[in-house]
């Protein structure tokens, strides 16, 4: 199920937190031939981890693996994560958390989607035939 060329790569990953190491290796491998800045790489990893872990956490009973696709062209990266036989989840509809609260009122969690939106240039969502696909784009530097 893996495939790659100079500008695109895709691979499926099991729905487990233990797959994160393989996901990061896959992303780093994709950029190995034409490196980007460490900050840019970390931003991409951050957003992919966030999207992936949402599906691990909130769709734990789904036995399907998730498809990660990376496409690079003209200095831009598009990353899609697709879940199969999934319920819809549009990250764009998640309300922003209050980031101005004092620590006593802070609760762990809730920051991941918010930060992901900050780190990318755009996020799109598609839900067709129970395929749930989130795509983000980012200018590479």
């Amino acid at each position, binding site marked *: 199920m893996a495939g790659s060329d100079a500008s695109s790569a895709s691979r499926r990953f099991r729905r487990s937190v233990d797959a994160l190491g393989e996901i990061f290796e896959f992303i780093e491998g994709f950029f190995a031939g034409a490196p980007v800045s460490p900050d840019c790489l970390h931003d991409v*990893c951050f957003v992919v981890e966030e999207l992936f872990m949402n599906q691990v956490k909130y769709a734990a009973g789904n036995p399907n693996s998730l498809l990660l696709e990376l496409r690079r062209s003209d200095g831009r990266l598009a990353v899609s994560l697709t879940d199969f036989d999934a319920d819809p989840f549009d990250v764009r509809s998640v309300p922003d958390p209050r980031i101005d609260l004092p*620590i006593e009122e802070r609760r762990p969690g809730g920051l991941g989607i*918010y*930060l992901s939106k900050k780190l990318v240039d755009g996020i799109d969502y598609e839900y067709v035939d129970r395929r749930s696909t989130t795509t983000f784009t980012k200018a590479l530097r």
Partner: protein
Amino acid sequence: MLDIRRGENGEIVLSGRFDASQAEQAERFLEAATGQVVLDFKDLQYISSLGLGTLVKTQKRLQAVGGGIRLVNVSPHIRDILQFSGLHFLFPIDAPPPK
């Protein structure tokens, strides 16, 4: 992988990647921390939202009893993450050394 250990001066040194798969290990380590705690991020390449959550939880616990976390050697990338999330208001962060 995340490596978390005590440094020579009692600080807690984090190295590597603080992603979701490492949060449990880090939480166990940080649960043992008391008082004023220095977290050294010099070799920390990456922190995820779960990692941030672990820091917030630890900071809340320590501040409730008069302690707290101070962050040192924070990379520009992680500094940005802390700023975007408003956590720079909740954690004293040492200024980077002059270039």
